[in-house]
């Protein structure tokens, strides 16, 4: 028992060190901008950079739209598959895995060929159109995570019986999805949303090739040209990600309680 605990703590300590030491080193480096003393100068420079504010804002917006689009596509789809077509679930699961296998660059080149300014669907003819295309692309990149999160959430409720109970009480599909299914998979959707956010904030390939002012290309640009700022940016990005995670944890606490989450 005692030695078991010791090994458990040791493993935990090693894991934590593996995770924290590089982070501390990065932080330490970022703080050495001013010669001879520690300072937050690098952070001040980063925060003061209008391009940081613009690109970060842009990516946050893109992430929000991606999450909305993802939820809109994935929740009804996963629900319908569980309800009416359980036999095609393996196929859908395979399809949602494709974005992990196909490099983003392939998808983007496909887009550029398909949606050029003289195609029937000229997404790329305007900046707004390109933004939309970028969000669609992000939704696809996030699909494996979103689908799995939602599907796992649906597994914890008896989708079919709950649907029938609502139907016999007079409810239509819109009511069933918004009042019943969505609230019951909210926590799952939030965790999918978190992963989506993390993916979108750091994404480089799509944003860069579609030539959008996103945070990923900005990170790359700074990283290639500066010394201390990239380290500061890395720490900031990490803090943002952690911030998201805490917010989601808090939201989860306020999410509707259910038999599946009895506390």
């Amino acid at each position, binding site marked *: 028992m005692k030695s078991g605990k010791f090994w458990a703590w040791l493993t935990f300590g090693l894991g934590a060190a593996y995770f924290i030491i590089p982070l501390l080193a990065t932080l330490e480096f970022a703080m050495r901008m001013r010669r001879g003393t520690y300072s937050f100068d690098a952070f001040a420079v980063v925060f003061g950079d209008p391009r940081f504010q613009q690109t970060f804002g842009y990516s946050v917006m893109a992430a929000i739209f991606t999450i909305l689009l993802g939820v809109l596509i994935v929740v009804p789809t996963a629900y319908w598959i569980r309800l009416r077509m359980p036999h095609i679930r393996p196929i859908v699961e395979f399809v949602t895995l494709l974005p992990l296998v196909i490099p983003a660059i392939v998808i983007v080149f496909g887009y550029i060929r398909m949606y050029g300014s003289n195609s029937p669907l000229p997404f790329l003819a305007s900046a707004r159109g390109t933004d939309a295309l970028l969000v669609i692309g992000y939704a696809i990149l996030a699909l494996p995570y979103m689908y799995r999160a939602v599907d796992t959430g649906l597994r914890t*409720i*008896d989708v079919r*019986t*709950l649907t*029938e*109970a*609502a*139907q*016999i*009480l*007079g*409810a*239509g599909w819109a*009511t069933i999805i918004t009042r*019943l299914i969505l*609230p*019951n998979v909210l926590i799952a959707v939030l965790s999918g949303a978190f992963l989506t956010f993390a993916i979108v904030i750091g994404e480089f390939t799509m944003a860069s090739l579609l030539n959008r002012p996103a945070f990923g290309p900005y990170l790359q640009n700074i990283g290639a040209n500066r010394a201390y700022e990239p380290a500061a940016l890395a720490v900031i990005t990490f803090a943002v990600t952690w911030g998201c995670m805490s917010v989601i944890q808090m939201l989860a606490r306020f999410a*509707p*309680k*259910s*038999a*599946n989450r*009895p506390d």
Partner: protein
Amino acid sequence: MTETYLSIQGVQKSFGSTTVVRDFNLDVGRGEFISFLGPSGCGKTTMLRMVAGFEEPSAGKIFVGGKDVTNLKPNQRKVGMVFQAYALFPNLTVAQNIAFGLRVAGTPKAESAQRVQEMLKLISLPHLGDRYPYQLSGGQQQRVALARALAPKPRLLLLDEPLSALDAKVRVSLREEIRSIQKELGITTIFVTHDQEEALSISDRIVVMNNGRADQAGTPFEIYNRPATRFVANFVGTLNVLEARILDAEAGSVDVAGQTLALHRDLAPKRNGDTISLALRPEAVSLGRTGERTGALDATIADVHFLGSVIRVRTKVGDSTVSLDTFNDPTMPPPVSGAPAELAFAPRDLMVLAD
């Protein structure tokens, strides 16, 4: 029976090539409590789901209040349903669950709140409106499910084995409660169960289903005492079956294990020499003739089970076993295994089973 309210006419249901419900006909009067009784897999749930609108009949029609509802969607039928697995919405409180149907129908808030209170009182859980389903016991959850089904004042109440997930004690008290609420509201109800005691104890009429067919529909008394088929006789209650050979079909005299019995009825279209199956309920048999129990067979006592107030005796007549119950009379010695015995019964209690 009062006027017909629900009418099921020639309904059939097939899934692919397997037919699950065949030629089902039933007229249910307003306010009647009907049970569908039958073994697992005989098509009870499928028939109920067709009444609810979750399945479409392959043939036949369903009428409610004189209107053809065969092709209506479940959310247009104004039917209340209680499921075996409770199926309460886990993200809503008890009160919100009960109000769900009212809210969907656009009932004003105040009216809906009042109706929820009425329903909570009806199911004797007036203080639990703010709880979540996971905070309730199974029996409480099922009562909430009942209240939720009844809140929008449905035209029919359908219950699919609502008690089978509960433990025995709750099962008995809740079935009484369901019956008394049903009577109070006068709502036409179909109750699906595979438990014969449940069906016998609470129904106005029972439909015994066998392999997708309604074998017999009748009051509990009729179903139990005058089963129409061998299946019904076997499925409802315990039954002693004796094989007999007809000696004189017209006079109703038969041979049972070498003994002659007079049935006092015409056995046509069976003929002399045919074999038939006779059935006797354990409670219709006693040891030794009394009053109306004038028919008799000689038997040997095979074994004796002392159950307290009752003694269950199994006897052998030829190769057949006949069980019977006698009251424990402290002044009399109990029967002993191996002893000869005279089985007495009223001849009209001997049922001739159709196959």
